[in-house]
């Protein structure tokens, strides 16, 4: 098996760096696409395949739809399939899974392919360079995945609640202190002292909580994503601040895994941290008086981003044809469809900053506007393991089951052990 894959990789490595030309319309063949499922991805992919088949009617596209429970399981599923010798032509994954395949010489580097394809170059020119840099950095400096859509984390706020509390809407750039003051004014209690409305929901998920560290100029891993950074005093400062929001200031409900969207829709909380994905739910529930602003900062005015993309494996029998499908699934029309679903931000600036997509919520320009300074989510090769370790300890501390210094010590020890294994 090992020899077979190596031989296939060597035989096909000739394609790397070569220009890919669009094959004739009567080309025959089969392309296998390994794709995660969510309502927007399914719709966009199926429409893209239809357009592709209108150009190449004799090409069969087989989609292997994979449910996305946790990234670790999704990435493991792909690895298992590759190990069994059934290597798909196209693999769709987000930045969380980029570095796990980067060093494997399994994918065609797309930089040179794009450089010789005018339509792809045109698409790329419309994408924020910082997003592309984040993608390349995750895979050792080369671009192996062509971007489809992305998400960041901003603060969604209920304008009616701000009006009722008699406070101004948050500025686009605001500090932790200003955020806390607003959250305190937005928290309401009844006569018995029982909270009836919380100011904020502390994100119970890795991507959502990440900006609370980045805005304090720290992160769980050191730059390069190879070593634990938990001992950084700024990391502790962020953790204590989040714990205080729940237990000292009592402006947030008890920590729970989740995004806080149901609580925001039910008007139990005034602010949540999320990407673009709550927008369809807000519109469905008629919650239209909503604005977004940047995450509050302590030392660094930034947020986090994650981006999805399509990669072409070297096992593909017809790279030219596969590249045409990738372009169809990531191009202008597909991007418009991603915008219509409103679940994520299209990679193309021209689509993400115009029309209906930019009309709601208030300050929607911040979504693409943050792309310039946003930092990629820490995504080492053992991403899912790091995520699991990190969230487990965060949960223990934010539910007051363990003291901060013990949590820091335990988390650092476990993370260091896990990172040593990958090194």
């Amino acid at each position, binding site marked *: *098996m*090992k020899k077979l*894959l*190596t031989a296939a990789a060597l035989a096909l490595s000739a394609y790397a760096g070569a220009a890919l030309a669009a094959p004739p319309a009567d080309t025959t063949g089969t392309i296998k696409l390994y794709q995660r499922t969510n309502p927007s991805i399914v719709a966009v992919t199926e429409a893209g395949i239809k357009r592709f088949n209108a150009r190449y009617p004799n090409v069969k596209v087989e989609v292997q739809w994979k449910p996305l429970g*946790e990234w*670790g*399981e999704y*990435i*493991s599923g792909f*690895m*298992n399939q*590759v*190990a*069994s010798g059934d290597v798909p032509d196209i693999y769709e994954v987000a930045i969380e899974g980029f570095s*796990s*395949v980067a060093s*494997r010489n*399994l994918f065609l580097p797309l930089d040179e392919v794009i450089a010789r394809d005018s339509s792809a170059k045109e698409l790329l020119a419309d994408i924020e360079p910082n997003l592309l840099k984040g993608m390349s950095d995750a895979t050792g400096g080369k671009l192996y995945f062509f971007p489809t859509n992305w998400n960041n984390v901003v603060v969604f706020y209920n304008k009616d609640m701000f009006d009722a509390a008699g406070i101004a809407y948050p500025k686009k750039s605001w500090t932790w202190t200003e955020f806390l003051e607003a959250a305190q004014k937005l928290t309401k209690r009844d006569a018995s002292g*029982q909270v009836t409305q919380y100011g904020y929901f502390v994100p119970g998920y890795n991507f959502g909580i990440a900006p609370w560290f980045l805005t304090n100029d720290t992160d769980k891993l050191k730059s390069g994503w190879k070593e634990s950074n938990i001992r950084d005093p700024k990391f502790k400062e962020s953790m204590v601040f989040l714990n205080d929001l729940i237990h000292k200031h009592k402006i947030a*409900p*008890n*920590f*729970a*895994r989740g995004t806080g969207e149901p609580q925001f829709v039910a008007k139990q909380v005034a602010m949540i941290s999320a990407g673009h994905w709550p927008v369809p739910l807000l519109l469905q529930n008629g919650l239209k008086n909503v604005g977004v602003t940047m995450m509050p900062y302590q030392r660094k005015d930034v947020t986090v981003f994650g981006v999805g993309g399509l990669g072409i494996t070297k096992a593909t029998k017809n790279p030219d044809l596969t590249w045409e499908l990738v372009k169809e699934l990531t191009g202008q029309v597909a991007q418009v469809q991603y915008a219509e679903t409103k679940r994520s931000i299209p990679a193309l600036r021209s689509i993400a900053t115009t029309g209906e997509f930019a009309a709601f919520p208030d300050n929607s320009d911040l979504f693409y506007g943050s792309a310039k300074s946003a930092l990629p989510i820490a995504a080492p090769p*053992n991403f*899912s*393991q790091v995520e*699991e370790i990190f969230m*487990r*300890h965060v*949960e*223990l501390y934010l*539910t007051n*089951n*363990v003291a901060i210094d013990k949590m820091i010590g335990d988390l650092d020890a*476990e993370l260091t*052990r*896990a990172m040593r*294994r990958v090194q």
Partner: protein
Amino acid sequence: MTRAAWREQIAAMAFLTPALICFLAFLVAPLIATAVFCLMEIDRFTFGMTYVGLDNFRYVFEDARFWKTFLNTFQFIAMAVVGNVGLGLLLAGLLDRALPSALRYFLRLAYFLPVLIATAFVSYIWKFLFDFDLGAINYYIRLLGLPPVGWLTDTRIAMASVVIMDVWKHVGFFMLILLAALQDVPRELREAAQVDGAGPVRIFVSVTIPCIAPALLFCVAYATIGGLQVYDSMRILTNGGPGDATRSVVMYMFSEAFGAGELALGAVSAFTLLIVIAVIVAAQMWISRRWIR
């Protein structure tokens, strides 16, 4: 050996072969594969293996979390076996008396109904009931003027919450088994004991328990093996949390093998669990031979 005896031998082998093939393919082969994986470093992409001896065992055994999950599993077993078998016996005892038949049928059905519902579904319902802020249980606790309980967020209580749900779901099964056993206890034995002056407690200890001992042992063994394999309820209800407070060894095994992508470490956990289960089953068989007639 005569020709007829040979024929009989061949016929017997022919009948045994399909079962033997299944046994080898689905039990022995995976067992050997797991044992081999334990000693290898496995590349997930090429499935290439490098012999590393006992390194994987060393790595897993040095992990305090591994032993913590074992401890959790046994804590769960102890609580769940006592809860399921104890409460099952109590309910069976209450139903094993002169009740109107309609009421008896209704109660039997009511206790057994949760057994028929999928664990995942039950777990989601209990997750809602146990919720700190919006849960129905804490709602009534607050109405009584008491502080809300962190059913799923307090490390000291979370395991008990999982056990409460497990007992609610499974107690009906054990109740039915034990009720059938109780109804098989000869009435003459109890009457004879009564004539000899034994009270209800003495009759229960000296007559009823020995008579239903095989059923009791089956229930304990069944609940123990089920407890050793507990996964879905913990995964949905608490996802092993808070921290590792409710993480079972099977959850640890799954997250190592399929979450972290460390197949060999998952194999080590599985192999260790297999040995522990084998020891427990052997102990139970010895007890049953020694004490149960």
